[in-house]
């Protein structure tokens, strides 16, 4: 009974689920009919369950392989017979460019024909996709088991690849050998070219075709590398684009200027980016960018920059926008923007050299024309001219700097590398060996402003002036030379009370301190300190004299400045260095008495200090009484004047106190009685006897030159407009040095540099004990860089000198030249 039941159940229970034999052919014919219906868009009456069940059963009964190959074969036949003829229907020879001689078709016709072909192909493809997804749905079980177990691609993938083989890579007709894919590429490229020429094309349509090419790969596996899009279309696209842009670059360069070219190139690059987004694939973007950048920028940038309308033209005409475009183009192909940077640098140096030359020409034009005689007689005019040249130079450089700062901000996106390059170029021309006056000019600029320029300006304005000076100072390499000049100019300003505001002076010093460091300003500060101490000293001496008791109505008031000799650049003040061996000037008795009084007083306070009197730097206020003598204008009365004269002039004038009115003193006599150095004497006599407004003495003969035989009379008829009269001493102001002076200055500078270098070498060697030559040079350079940039030959000389003096010794037998420090 039980057995019977079992037997009964073993029989196929229901509807052949368990029936072992499946008639594949009948099932397949059923499926094939259904598939054909699907392909002809006639599937709405098909029952999915039924198809699925059949496919499932076939696979379950180990007929998966047959099913798989049957479906593949069916699709192959379908594609190569039905679909291919459909594609051909959309083909027309018109759609291709350059089809032999029959280019009768207009661009519009060609575009329409191309679009028709693309549309046909796109529709065939999307229809194939839809149908295959339905067929694949029917065959899921086969995909899940048979394909999976045998590592075969899913039936959908296989069918897609069949589309590639049977449609895209097959010839369009039996007569025409060109594969469809080739035609497709040609048509798309043609359409893109039309768009580049300004036509409107159907981007969406092309994008669909691109999607198709992207989803198919050459070998059939899923890797992205050999997608048809990449291996077929993209290659052609990049190639034709390269040719096109190469041609276009030449044409545009020939026809337009640099600015227009930049605009054009920028637009093309943007267009290609946009095209990749809207029409092609994003993955092409970097590649096509590379092509466009190569052809429009990389290969042409040098040419564009150097065009007549290139960077120089743009800079000179403030074409910020064009410069910015050019800069951006350059930045695309070169992170360092070297081409534009180079052009900008060249322009800076060229403009800077112009400024240098103009300054030199201006400063030399005066002394060039007149001879020696005129040079001495017209020194003030020359001074002014030279100072003016210096100031003009500074202002020109600052204007140039402002201009390029503007360009940098407006056009170069405040690029750091560009800034560095520009700074280097400024430093280059400012420190140019052809123009050695930078330090002096800057110092003069400050001097001029301290004396006159800042009068009546607000604090903020003064600040900007000072800042400008600092900006220039940054570029200066030889800071020590600047220091020397500055000290000299400052010295004059302080001693002669030329400075408008002590506050501003101190402000300047503190700015320099920030910029150049403590070292630089200590001496300058010491100068200020001396001035303050001297004021106190003067005051306490005055008190001291008052305390002495004997009220002398003719007492002379003494104002004194005690200067520390190491701090002040006294040698630059004139005669002292020359007259080392000479005696100092003979002071009038009254003056000499008070001088000695002060020396005594000072020695009480600071014993052991030696005071040296620098009469050439002093000044004196004297009251002069001119007797009743008939005037030119007929008035007849006594006149009193307060004369402010130099110390030497004072000595000379007091000499005339003892000379009767009609008597005279010769130059030789004056020199003998005063012992004033000749050069100073000449200058003082010039200002007393030659200068028209302060002619207190009369000279015979009346020439501008002072000769040893000249006679001098007291000018009784002198008549000044004011009670107080200042007798300026000729050429005592700060002015540009003559060449001879500069050579001296530089020589002195070199000497002090030598000490600096030696000190640096010893410091380094003391620490390192042994060091190779090249390294020692390097370290020395970097140590003194803040102050100046020494020549390597100078360092070598210093090393030799140190070896001579047995600070160092050469290491014998070392591979490279090396030194050892000798303690």
């Amino acid at each position, binding site marked *: 009974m039980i057995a019977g039941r079992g037997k009964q159940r073993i029989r196929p229970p229901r*509807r052949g689920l*368990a029936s072992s034999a499946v008639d594949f052919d009948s099932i397949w014919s059923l499926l094939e009919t259904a598939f054909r219906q699907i392909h002809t868009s006639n599937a709405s009456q098909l029952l999915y369950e039924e198809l699925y069940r059949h496919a499932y059963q076939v696979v379950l009964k180990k007929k998966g392989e047959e099913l798989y190959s049957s479906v593949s074969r069916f699709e192959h036949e379908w594609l190569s017979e039905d679909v291919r003829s459909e594609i051909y229907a959309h083909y027309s020879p018109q759609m291709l460019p350059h089809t032999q001689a029959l280019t009768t078709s207009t661009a519009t016709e060609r575009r329409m024909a191309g679009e028709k072909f693309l549309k046909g192909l796109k529709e065939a493809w999307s229809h194939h996709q839809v149908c295959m997804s339905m067929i694949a749905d029917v065959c899921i079980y086969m995909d899940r088991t048979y394909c999976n177990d045998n590592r075969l691609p899913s039936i959908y993938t296989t069918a897609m690849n069949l589309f590639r083989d049977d449609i895209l890579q097959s010839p369009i007709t039996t007569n025409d050998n060109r594969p469809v894919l080739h035609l497709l590429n040609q048509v798309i490229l043609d359409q893109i070219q039309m768009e580049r020429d300004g036509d409107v094309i159907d981007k969406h349509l092309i994008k669909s075709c691109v999607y198709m090419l992207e989803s198919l790969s050459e070998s059939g596996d899923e890797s992205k590398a050999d997608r048809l899009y990449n291996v077929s279309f993209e290659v052609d696209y990049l190639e034709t684009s390269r040719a096109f842009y190469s041609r276009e670059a030449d044409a545009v360069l020939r026809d337009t200027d640099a600015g227009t070219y930049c605009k054009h190139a920028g637009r093309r690059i943007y267009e290609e980016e946009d095209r990749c987004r809207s029409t092609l694939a994003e993955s092409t973007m970097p590649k096509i960018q590379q092509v466009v950048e190569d052809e429009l920028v990389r290969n042409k940038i040098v040419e564009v920059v150097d065009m007549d309308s290139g960077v120089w033209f743009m800079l000179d005409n403030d074409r910020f926008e064009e410069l910015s475009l050019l800069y951006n183009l350059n930045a695309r192909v070169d992170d360092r923007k070297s081409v534009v940077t180079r052009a900008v640098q060249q322009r800076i140096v060229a403009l800077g050299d112009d400024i240098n030359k103009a300054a030199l020409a201006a400063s030399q034009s005066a002394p060039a024309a007149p001879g020696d005689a005129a040079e001495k007689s017209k020194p003030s005019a020359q001074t002014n001219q030279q100072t003016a040249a210096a100031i003009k130079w500074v202002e020109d450089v600052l204007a140039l700097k402002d201009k390029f700062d503007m360009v940098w901000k407006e056009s170069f996106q405040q690029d750091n590398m560009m800034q560095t390059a520009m700074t280097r170029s400024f430093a280059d021309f400012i420190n140019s060996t052809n123009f050695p006056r930078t330090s002096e000019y800057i110092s003069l600029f400050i001097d001029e402003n301290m004396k006159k320029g800042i009068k009546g300006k607000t604090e903020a304005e003064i600040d900007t002036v000072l800042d400008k000076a600092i900006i220039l100072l940054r570029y200066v390499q030889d800071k020590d030379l600047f220091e020397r000049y500055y000290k000299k100019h400052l010295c004059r300003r302080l001693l002669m009370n030329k400075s408008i505001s002590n506050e501003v002076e101190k402000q300047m010093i503190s700015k320099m301190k920030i910029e150049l460091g403590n070292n630089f300003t200590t001496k300058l500060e010491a100068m200020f300190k001396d001035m303050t101490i001297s004021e106190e000293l003067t005051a306490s001496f005055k008190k001291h004299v008052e305390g002495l008791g004997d009220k002398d109505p003719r007492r002379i008031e003494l104002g004194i400045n005690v200067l520390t000799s190491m701090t002040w650049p006294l040698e630059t003040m004139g005669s002292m260095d020359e007259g080392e061996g000479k005696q100092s000037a003979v002071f009038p008795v009254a003056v000499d008495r008070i001088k000695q009084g002060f020396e005594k007083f000072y020695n009480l306070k600071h014993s052991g200090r030696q005071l040296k009197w620098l009469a050439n730097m002093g000044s004196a206020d004297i009251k002069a009484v001119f007797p009743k003598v008939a005037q030119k204008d007929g008035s007849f009365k006594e006149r009193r004047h307060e004369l402010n004269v130099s110390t030497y002039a004072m000595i000379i004038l007091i000499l005339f106190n003892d000379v009767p009115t009609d008597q005279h003193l010769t130059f030789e006599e004056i020199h003998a009685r005063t012992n004033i150095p000749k050069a100073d004497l000449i200058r003082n006599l010039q200002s007393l006897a030659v200068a028209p407004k302060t002619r207190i003495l009369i000279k015979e003969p009346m020439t501008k030159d002072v000769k040893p035989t000249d006679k001098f009379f007291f000018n009784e008829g002198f008549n000044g407009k004011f009670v107080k009269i200042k007798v300026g001493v000729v050429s005592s102001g700060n002015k540009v040095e003559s060449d001879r002076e500069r050579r001296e200055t530089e020589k002195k500078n070199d000497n002090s540099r030598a000490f600096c270098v030696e000190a640096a070498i010893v410091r380094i060697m003391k620490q390192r004990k042994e060091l190779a030559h090249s390294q020692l040079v390097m370290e020395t350079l970097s140590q003194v860089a803040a102050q100046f940039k020494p020549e390597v030959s100078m360092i070598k000389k210093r090393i030799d000198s140190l070896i001579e003096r047995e600070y160092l010794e050469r290491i014998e037998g070392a591979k490279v030249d090396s030194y050892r420090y000798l303690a």
Partner: protein
Amino acid sequence: MTVRPIQYETVDGLKVVMSVRTWKRPDDELMESMAKLYGSEDYADMTIKYGKGKQRSAHRAIMCSRSEFFKCALKGGFKEASTGEIDLSADDAEAVDHMLYYIYHNKYPDPKRCTSNRESKHRESQMSCGDYWLLEGPREPHNMSPSFMAAAAEYNRRRELASQHEHSAESGLNDEKPSASRRVRFSENEGRDVKGEEHPETGAESSAQSEGVTHVHVYAIAEKYGLEGLKTLARQRFKDDLPILMKSSKFPEICHAVFETTIQTDRGLRDLVVQAFRAQLELHKDKKIRRMLNKTPDLALELYDMLCPFVPLHGSGHRS
């Protein structure tokens, strides 16, 4: 959270009144609402026809997301999409029932009980609430007094006995659950497997025997429609019942069904059968088995392969 008073009388005549608090788990909530949809007309947008003229409403959202077959059938193009009807009458009706139940409950019902329940829809929906909380059991047994524990255990035991005669009690079964619910399950398993006081041996065996083929059919339909989880459950049931099935007279029939309804590479049930043959060499002598082997060449071949384990065929799947 629900608080429910329970009145209960112990064997000694002691009356116990207690209230049980239960916190609902989010997963349970989901399962409950899914279960409510099962067979319901609410929101239904498709119909499944099966067996002989049976039909059940279902929901595309649920069916299509569970099985690729339904997704493909309904996503458009074919007739099913427009009519919303899927005809599964070619499949074993009982298996379809199990599949639909599984899709909505994520469970594999006791085949026999499910069959009995099929007609009474309202009882099924009651079940989902009625027994649910109880089987959930007290969550934190250590928080409760010993007397409560004892009472609860007793109560569970009785409910269990009662439910075996009434309807499916296992709807609340869940492996993670501690205490009472697990205890219920253990006792049931023991009962079915071997002796078990509550289950008369004969009853359990006969039900298992009749269910054997059903497991195979459910497994096949799960494979056909791509429900891996259901395959797992069906296989587990099959495996659990296998010792009884082997003794059963239906074993040849079952073996034949296994090899007819699965593809060669699907080893789920096939391996179990082959192992059973290996463990039970006497089967060799059984005439009915031999007759079955005659009709089931796949099994015969695999048994032969089993004899020569050290001669590898090409590949693991050894297809012809």
